[in-house]
């Protein structure tokens, strides 16, 4: 099963002077259980693309199938298919609205018509998942939390829906390094343990390189690279075109290589990179 996009084109404000084609003839398959990262500069169409997957935006042309169901059809299956997709927007903390944290997280599951007992279980699990203590935080107002904590509550609200496909739009923006590392670890866990299919929109190439199995680079509404991180980050020209950068470690290794240290540059893990530098220094001494 998968999300399948066929020849999708999307034009904002069609028929007005502000008409702008945000997505041009995109075809794409996101396999179940995969981890896909979508990267590109501001305005490249990333967010517009992911909002098509659950019907928030409707394509101007083209088709979208979620697990084989055409989500643009008017059939009841289409609605169910859209419910398989959970979306964490940019600044999810702006979506908080309830008086207590527990009530905010329970809002989605309650709308699914679940039993109270099941709702509470889901709220507890979701809060444990984002590392907020249930007893301490359930009665607190979500508006008295720090930015990072609000982000976690908002994510818990989506996790509590148990989406099969989870879309996260810039989930780590504005989080401190530890908060970022924690959240990414949790997302990786969801992917590995719960078999959730993850689609992550990100500017942060270090996050992308560490986690994703597939990387999509977008530029001017088109997908210009769709490959594994190992291959994708070798497309130096296209990365530049997309207004992106290679991961920091890779950039450092490339600079070392230019200056004559013979290192492998397609390394994404810090420890491996350090070992590679040590080996390269060893090789240099031998010559």
């Amino acid at each position, binding site marked *: 099963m998968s999300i399948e996009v066929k020849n999708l084109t999307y034009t904002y404000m069609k028929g007005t002077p502000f008409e702008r084609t945000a997505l041009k003839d995109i075809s794409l398959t996101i396999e179940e259980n995969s981890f896909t990262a979508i990267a590109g500069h501001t305005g490249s169409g990333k967010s517009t693309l992911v909002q098509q997957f659950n019907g928030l935006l409707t394509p101007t042309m083209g088709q979208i199938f979620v697990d084989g169901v055409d989500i643009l059809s008017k059939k009841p299956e289409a609605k169910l298919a859209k419910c398989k997709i959970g979306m964490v927007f940019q600044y999810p903390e702006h979506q908080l609205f309830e008086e207590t944290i527990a009530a905010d997280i329970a809002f989605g599951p309650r709308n699914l018509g679940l039993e109270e007992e099941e709702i509470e279980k889901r709220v507890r699990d979701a809060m444990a998942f984002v590392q907020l203590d249930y007893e301490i935080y359930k009665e607190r107002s979500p508006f008295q939390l720090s930015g990072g904590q609000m982000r976690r509550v908002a994510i818990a609200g989506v996790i509590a829906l148990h989406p099969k496909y989870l879309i996260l739009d810039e989930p780590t923006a504005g989080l401190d390094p530890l908060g970022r590392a924690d959240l990414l670890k949790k997302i990786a866990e969801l992917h590995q343990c719960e078999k959730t299919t993850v689609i992550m929109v990100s500017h942060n190439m270090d996050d992308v390189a560490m986690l994703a199995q597939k990387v999509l680079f977008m530029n001017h509404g088109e997908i210009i690279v769709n490959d594994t991180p190992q291959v994708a980050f070798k497309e130096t020209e296209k990365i530049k075109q997309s207004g992106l950068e290679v991961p920091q470690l890779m950039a450092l290794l490339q600079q070392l290589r230019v200056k004559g240290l013979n290192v492998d540059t397609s390394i994404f893990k810090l420890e491996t990179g*350090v070992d590679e530098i040590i080996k390269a220094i060893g090789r240099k001494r031998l010559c």
Partner: protein
Amino acid sequence: MEFIQIENLSHVYHEGQENEYRALDNINLTVKKGEFLAVIGTNGSGKSTLAKHLNALLLPTAGSCKIMGMNTATAEEVWKIRQHVGMVFQNPDNQIIAAVVEEDVAFGPENLGVPAAEIRFRVAEALRAVSMEKYRKFAPHLLSGGQKQRVAIAGALAMQTDCIVFDEPTAMLDPIGRGEVLETVKKLHKEAGITVVYITHFMEEAVAADHVVVMEKGRIAEEGTPIEVFTKVEKLKKMGLTVPLATEVAFLLRQKGIPVPETVLTNKELVVALCQ
């Protein structure tokens, strides 16, 4: 007289209530005129609360905050203080209000009652300083994140401010936008002598500052030049922070017996150290 003088400043939210929270705890800090200060720290460590004291958006619950000798707690001084200290926040969409770039930049001086000719001059100057003069007739929502953030900076400059406080200005931007904003900040600091207080989670950006302050649980946990602060790799990591990648790689290399100087902060410096 120091430009910013903070003495024994504490800030307690909801004082006396059940959910009382001490966000700042006895802070002492001075910033000289023309200095570039970076503030780092985890979410909830008090960085933004501190920033909001610098132009009297928040007032100390104890201690004092003085800008050019003026106390932020003195109601008559607040408007003067706000002309000296501008603010740029994380999300430019929250502070751009007009439908045309130049009108947005003109908003501040218009409110001060500055004559029209003078406003025109200031807006042109401010947009030139952030390299956005080409976009003066554009609608802000059609600009990229980095461009919008530069418009926000121009808005502060048009007030002829001496100091700009940046609260994570690059958090929402793509790599190019981040580069644009940081370059603009560096240029304003260097060429226009603007005093900069720069809050960030990107350690590579903090390296550009003259001075770095590390906040933890409402207190200043560490303070010094970027070299003094970032050489404490283990201490920063314990606090939940990181150091620039080059510093971390150098640290790990040293642990494995490769001689690399402790002062490495940038890729360039590390490359020089390893490839002489």
